[in-house]
């Protein structure tokens, strides 16, 4: 498991061949293989490379969909 700073997380934004990582409650998930995160964007409103802990409560789904993807590190 790797420790990610916010800056390192932001580099994994799913654009220009970069993987798409997002953080939730300190865990960093790799959503690169998700159809819903193509080009690092999710349903127009959310970008990869960000900590989405606050935003998930507004989403029409819970953490269970996020937990389908591998955890690749911790947000420090």
């Amino acid at each position, binding site marked *: 498991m790797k420790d990610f700073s916010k800056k390192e997380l932001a580099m994994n934004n799913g654009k220009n061949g970069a993987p798409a990582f997002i953080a939730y409650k300190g865990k960093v998930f790799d959503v690169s293989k998700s*159809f*819903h995160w*193509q080009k690092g964007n999710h*349903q*127009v*409103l959310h970008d990869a490379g960000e900590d989405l802990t606050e935003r998930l409560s*507004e*989403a*029409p*789904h819970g953490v269970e969909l996020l937990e389908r993807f591998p955890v690749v590190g911790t947000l420090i």
Partner: protein
Amino acid sequence: MAKVTREMVEKSGIDVDQLVELLVKNAAAELTTFYYYTILRINLIGLKGEGIKEIAETARIEDRNHFEALVPRIYELGGKLPQSMNEFHDISACPPANLPDDPTDVEAMLEVLVGAERCAVRGYTHICNMTAGKDHRTYDLSQSILNEEIEHESWFSEFLGEGPSGHFLRRGETSPFVSKFLR
């Protein structure tokens, strides 16, 4: 574009470009689902599959209706649709509802169908939340579509043994909620 219509939605505090993009992505999901459901429906055969064929067909036709109902709203708000079918497929708000590797596996078929409907239910719930009390026409349209997507989900989930849907299948006419947008 309906200039004042767009202005009113902007004044309500909604990011109209963002909303239009979401509507286009959901329209793309409806159109591609119509295509994938055609293949799924054709493959729902045999003792187990035949019983599901009719509701898959209803869901297929209603998804096409949803696409047709969404398009005018996209144009009213100043949006446009992709020029190519490839782009439509790639921007879809929901993943492709592919035929399972084993098309005789009816349970796998149902998982695909219910997965597609659940994606749609989440998508329209989100649009309803965004537009409630602000963009009345998009809200009305999204809520109407949501009503039908919820019924589709419950039909398929019933066959998966998740409990009764509590209502009957369509009798004749399709799109009881969305038809007012198709006149």
